[in-house]
């Protein structure tokens, strides 16, 4: 007995198939002659028993199967009844209960595909027979499949330290599960920490955020990796391996007490990102007072030592000797079960719309810059000042800058109307200047939003419906001298109006992070046309992504306000906690499998797989062959079609099974 004999020849063991035809009350029975189909089934090859019963999915119906399996030692079962999408799990459990592998089971849909859609009894019966014949032909080739499960690593990775990341991290950590929070900037806080007040309640943004930040900083179950970025992600749901680059701060976190002496003494300055360029910060800096962690960072691009090799003043003054210029980036390997991306958004750069004069006229500022002006911790200590220090007598607020515009972003950024109103209120409150809001639609849809709009209009804010065409300093009349003239058509008046103001605040759009493409590739998720991350289903599954175990929350999934962001963060946390409590992940059983003898290592499967499951590499054999990471494979079968030699096939959807059905269905 030489050579390798085909499996089919070896295990030509007895196939004993049980066929059960369901009446489904009258749903099937009144159009299909179920007895005739059962008798016919009895005559088919390797069928040991063929019965018909009124309700196969009922308990007695299932017992029928279980007993037959035990007594007649059936090794395959076919049930002809309703759609497998309906009762396949039910009957599979029944088989399992009778210790028959659930995959040695097939269904023939003689209800939705036959009795319900045809009326001629003779033809319907004929078709039912064909469908049963096909199911029997298929089950003959079914193999028992082992349903694998892998343990779910309870640790979680949250990427992004804004309000979304903080909320998600806290909720998971509060249920005593380890969270790694990776934040790119020196401190967590994201965009929200830059805001002065939040709408509609006008709470001080920092007052409601800093306690949560502190909680994160002190939480025993949260390991905060600030000033760090995710380099590389591998593995799959339940067992991700993440490589994090902890950028060199040049300050030893343990020794630093956060006294701030080094920041005082450092003579070199640079634009403060926190104040959006409105003020300066030192080369060694913490972005803002309540920074978590409260450890400064040395900015290489503005530190004299790194640029010209001299100074090191901070080192001299630091009592605890925490300054360490030799520090290098470190790499940390993390193992987590699930990942929540909360990477937030970028603010739109309005200078691309040259007509609005941002970057040309001093007093044209963005909403975020206004937040810094009005914030007590801001460069002007909360006073609304023009560039030359004067108090503005009139302020114009322009909506939809970069939003709802085909040339920039077609979507509506959802939050600008509300923060436009907030700016108006603050200006009125602090300077009592004339305020004009140029809008197209006032979108105040949230809870308490419309009331806030009513309140702000009562404070004497003028609302002009029209998209601003131009902001110019060229005066046409005396009132316009020395002022910024906002030109737009008041569509309700139907005439062009020129509004001279001292300051212009641009409600800029929220857009996807500039590195979103790269991040999406790292976490094997995809992006929508507008650049934000693609959710699994926009309505029913907004926080999940097509890649199992990777969840998204907050503005990285699309522009949204803080309440919605927090809700999504909690949703994502809940999904993770559900997976943690289950403790294990059941893997898709019918996944692809490579016969390495047949594989010629051509890489076509690797190239086209959306889920990066097959990978060609050199394993035991000298020539490269493909191997499938079963946890990543979804069983879609695309690789099997592309494989020239038929080396890769999908368990439970092997060519022999499908070809057997094709032949059986063809027989008239």
């Amino acid at each position, binding site marked *: 007995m030489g050579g390798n004999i085909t499996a089919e020849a070896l295990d030509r063991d007895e196939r004993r198939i049980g066929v059960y035809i369901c009446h489904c009350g009258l749903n099937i029975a009144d159009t299909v002659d179920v007895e005739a189909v059962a008798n016919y089934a009895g005559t088919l090859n390797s069928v040991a028993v063929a019965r018909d019963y009124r309700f196969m999915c009922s308990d007695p119906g299932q017992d029928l199967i279980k007993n037959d399996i035990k007594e007649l030692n059936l090794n395959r079962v076919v049930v002809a009844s309703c759609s497998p999408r309906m009762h396949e799990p039910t009957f599979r459990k029944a088989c399992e209960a009778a210790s028959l592998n659930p995959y040695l089971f097939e269904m023939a849909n003689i209800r939705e595909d036959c009795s319900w*859609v045809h009326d001629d009894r003779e*033809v319907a019966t004929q078709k039912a027979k064909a469908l049963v014949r096909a199911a029997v032909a298929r089950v003959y080739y079914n193999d028992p499949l082992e349903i694998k499960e892998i343990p779910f690593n309870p640790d979680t990775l949250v990427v992004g330290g804004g309000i979304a990341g903080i909320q998600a991290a806290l909720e998971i950590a509060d249920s005593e599960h380890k969270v790694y929070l990776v934040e790119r900037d020196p401190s967590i806080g994201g965009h929200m920490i830059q805001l002065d007040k939040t709408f509609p309640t006008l709470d001080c943004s920092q007052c409601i955020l800093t306690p949560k930040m502190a909680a994160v900083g002190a939480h025993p179950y949260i390991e905060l990796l600030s000033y760090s970025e995710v380099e590389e992600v591998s593995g799959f749901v339940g067992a991700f391996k993440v490589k994090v680059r902890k950028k060199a701060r040049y300050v030893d976190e343990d020794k630093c007490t956060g006294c701030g002496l080094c920041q005082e003494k450092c003579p070199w300055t640079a634009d403060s990102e926190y104040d959006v360029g409105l003020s300066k910060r030192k080369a060694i800096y913490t972005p803002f007072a309540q920074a978590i962690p409260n450890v400064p960072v040395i900015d290489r691009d503005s530190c004299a030592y790194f640029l010209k090799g001299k100074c090191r003043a901070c080192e001299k003054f630091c009592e605890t000797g925490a300054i360490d210029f030799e520090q290098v980036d470190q790499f940390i390997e993390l193992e987590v079960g699930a990942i929540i991306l909360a990477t937030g958004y970028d603010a739109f750069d309005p200078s691309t719309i040259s007509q609005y004069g941002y970057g040309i006229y001093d007093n044209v500022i963005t909403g975020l810059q206004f937040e810094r002006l009005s914030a007590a911790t801001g460069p002007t200590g909360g006073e609304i000042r023009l560039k030359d220090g004067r108090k503005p007598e009139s302020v114009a607020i322009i909506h939809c800058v970069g939003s709802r515009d085909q040339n920039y972003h077609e979507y509506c950024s959802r939050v600008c109307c509300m923060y436009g109103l907030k700016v108006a209120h603050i200006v009125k409150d602090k300077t009592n200047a004339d305020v004009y809001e140029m809008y197209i639609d006032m979108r105040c849809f949230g809870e308490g939003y419309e009331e806030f709009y009513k309140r702000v209009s009562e404070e004497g804010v003028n609302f002009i419906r029209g998209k601003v065409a131009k902001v110019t300093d060229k005066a046409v009349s005396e009132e316009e001298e020395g002022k910024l003239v906002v030109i737009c058509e008041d569509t309700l008046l139907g005439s062009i109006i020129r509004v001279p103001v001292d300051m212009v605040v641009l409600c800029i759009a929220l857009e996807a992070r500039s590195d979103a493409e790269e991040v999406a590739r790292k976490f094997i998720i995809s992006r929508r046309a507008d650049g934000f991350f693609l959710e699994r289903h926009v309505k029913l599954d907004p926080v999940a992504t097509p890649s199992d175990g990777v969840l998204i929350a907050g503005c990285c999934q699309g522009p949204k306000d803080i309440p919605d962001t927090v809700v999504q963060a909690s949703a994502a946390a809940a999904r993770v906690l559900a997976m943690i409590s289950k403790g294990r992940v059941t893997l898709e059983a019918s996944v692809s499998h490579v016969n390495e003898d047949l594989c010629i290592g051509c890489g076509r499967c690797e190239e086209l797989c959306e*889920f990066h499951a097959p990978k060609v590499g050199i394993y035991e054999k000298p020539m490269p062959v493909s191997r499938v990471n079963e946890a990543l494979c979804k069983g879609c079968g695309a690789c099997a*079609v592309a494989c020239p030699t038929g080396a890769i096939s999908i368990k439970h959807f092997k060519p022999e099974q499908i070809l057997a059905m*094709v032949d059986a269905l063809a027989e008239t």
Partner: protein
Amino acid sequence: MSEFEPSILCFACNWCSYAAADIAGTSRIHYPPNVRLLRVMCSGMVDAEYVMKALEAGFDGVMVAGCHIGDCHYISGNIKAQEMVTRLKKLLHILGLEDERLMLKWIATSEGPIFAETIKEYVEQLKKLGPSPFRKELVT
């Protein structure tokens, strides 16, 4: 011999087209019995081998039904099905088979009625076209 009744094999993708067929069933929308459904996980799973085998077995028409572009549960399965069908149609054209013998159709889950309608139209089309040259009786 009674009027020619074409036989059709339809590969239906589990997430959209097969679900649409189920809905056509639950809403009792009748359509001609000439079609026989074969459930696959994704239209991208349908290999040229299965279509050729169906033609060899004597089916007069083969239909591959998948999700609309962008709806695919596996992101791009339907696109791959489209590529396969386009390439296979060129082969069948050289072989002399009419283009209608193989049909690709996107049917979303909710489009039960459209599923039934498509089957009706396809049967009419094939009736006009006549039997496949490989139909069982003709071959032997």
